[in-house]
């Protein structure tokens, strides 16, 4: 059995660069592992073995300059269009869709030399947080196969944690990159709204959707984000701002930077062991030279209803035709949420948008005094598959509200946030934190996250599935 799948993307990149291994060797090693392991995890909807081997052989024959992802076997959330490979969005409705184009994020990874191994499972149409998919089966958490991997990019989180790909694309509308990253003990980077093109990505909520990487380490996430970020004339919301050098940010020292901890909201619903891990992480950041101060962002308390109103209404607008003509083809939970979205009052939606503007201005004022914020990741370890509620400090909370709780402020504001591991729960599952930053300042949160990662051992995982 090859040990190549257990290496980080950066380690594989170095081996490929000095031709110590070939793209075909690496690709075969991952395909073998998928064959042996994914029957238990169910992270893939479609494995593109033939296309991946063909691409790997082509890359091995390549003369001339190599791209930064040359030969790296990566995988894609099945919400992103892939040329000549079916793209289901985790749904029955799109089960037969074979696009004749790549989403921009996929095209950029391919252009940088990536080998695409396949399409990863997700919550249907990305509208949920468990990846308990009624059409393609539930994805299982590699740390505990009875538990959810989070969602909606649950296949992405599980595949990275179980070394079934070297990195993956996820999307994040209410936490859907950072929730599975936290549940599966990997790194998830939701960049600034508009930093990565959404062209070719099936929308959930246009004003909240983000595309970003899930990876084994912060350095890997920086490598993968750099290869997908930048302007795109096919996405009018994609920013034309210059893309920073994210890899260089992992070489910078964060000493002297000031991080803020919001007084409101984030700690109102957090399990004691998550709080303890977070406090220890804050102490580590102080020890490595960062200043920590408390900050106040009062409008945070209205985050959840504003997020839910906007997300449900925009999703209902996108799915209006299918909901009218094929309602029975939606899974029951997604159908109910879409029907709910049709009934959100216009007055509530306007109030939500106004709250969003106020929240953005409060965050902007905060970032005049601090360089980044640190907040908890998931409020508690992920629940068992099928559970409708989860316990947070012995109180039962609905799973969607609990898992999305700490995530949504950064969708409403569009600010970048990286989820990283920072501890283990009593039951052995990973615990995590988020580092959030100013708009388009992914480099600073990568710098801080990488320094934290270097100072701790939480990014090291046992061989999974356990």
């Amino acid at each position, binding site marked *: 059995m090859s040990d190549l799948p257990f290496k980080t993307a950066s380690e594989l990149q170095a081996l490929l660069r000095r031709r110590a291994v070939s793209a075909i060797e690496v690709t075969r090693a991952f395909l073998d592992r998928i064959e042996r392991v994914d029957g238990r995890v169910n992270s893939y909807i479609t494995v593109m073995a033939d296309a991946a081997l063909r691409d790997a052989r082509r890359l091995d024959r390549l003369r001339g300059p190599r791209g930064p992802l040359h030969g790296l076997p990566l995988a894609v959330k099945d919400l992103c269009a892939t040329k000549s490979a079916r793209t289901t969005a985790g749904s029955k409705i799109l089960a037969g869709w074979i696009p004749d184009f790549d989403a921009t994020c996929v095209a950029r990874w391919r252009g940088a030399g990536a080998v695409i191994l396949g399409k990863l499972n997700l919550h249907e149409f990305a509208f949920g947080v468990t990846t308990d998919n009624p059409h393609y089966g539930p994805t299982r958490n590699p740390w505990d196969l009875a538990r959810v991997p989070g969602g909606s990019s649950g296949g992405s989180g599980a595949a990275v944690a179980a070394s079934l790909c070297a990195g993956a694309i996820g999307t994040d509308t209410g936490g859907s990159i950072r929730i599975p990253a936290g549940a599966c003990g990997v790194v998830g980077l939701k960049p600034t709204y508009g930093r990565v093109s959404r062209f070719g990505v099936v929308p959930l909520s246009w004003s909240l959707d983000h595309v970003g990487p899930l990876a084994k380490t912060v350095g890997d996430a920086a490598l993968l984000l750099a290869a997908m970020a930048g302007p795109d004339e096919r996405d009018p919301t994609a920013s034309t701002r210059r893309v920073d050098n994210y890899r260089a940010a992992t070489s910078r020292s964060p000493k002297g930077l000031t991080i803020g901890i919001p007084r409101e909201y984030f700690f109102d619903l957090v399990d004691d062991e998550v709080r303890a891990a977070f406090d220890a992480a804050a102490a580590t950041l102080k020890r490595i030279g960062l200043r920590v101060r408390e900050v106040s962002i009062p409008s945070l308390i209205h985050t959840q209803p504003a997020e*839910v109103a906007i997300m449900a209404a925009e999703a209902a607008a996108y799915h209006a035709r299918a909901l009218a003509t094929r309602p029975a083809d939606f899974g029951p939970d997604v159908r*109910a949420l879409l029907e*709910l979205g049709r009934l959100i009052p216009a007055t509530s939606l306007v*109030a939500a*948008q*106004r709250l969003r503007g106020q929240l953005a201005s409060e965050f902007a004022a905060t970032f005049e005094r601090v360089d980044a914020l640190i907040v908890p990741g998931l409020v508690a370890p992920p629940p068992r598959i099928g559970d409708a509620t989860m316990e947070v400090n012995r109180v039962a909370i609905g799973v969607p509200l609990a898992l999305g709780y700490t995530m949504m402020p950064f969708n409403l504001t569009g600010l970048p946030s990286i989820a990283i591991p920072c501890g283990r729960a009593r039951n052995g599952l990973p615990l995590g934190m988020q580092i959030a930053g100013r708009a388009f300042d992914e480099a600073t949160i990568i710098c801080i996250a990488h320094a934290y990662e270097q100072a701790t051992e939480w990014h090291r995982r046992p061989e999974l599935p356990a």
Partner: protein
Amino acid sequence: MALETDPRTTALAAVVRSTEQRALLTWLLESLNALEQIDFGERQPVGVTAPIPPNE
């Protein structure tokens, strides 16, 4: 408006299929009511979509 007299309660109740969804619905209605009661005060017109972006 009280939940039981809010006309949205009846309309939304029709889409509910489980106890969990009913709990979510109740939370959402309460929250939306709270959202609509926010006093944006002197900060108006915060959060209003501008027909011409200010940096154009």
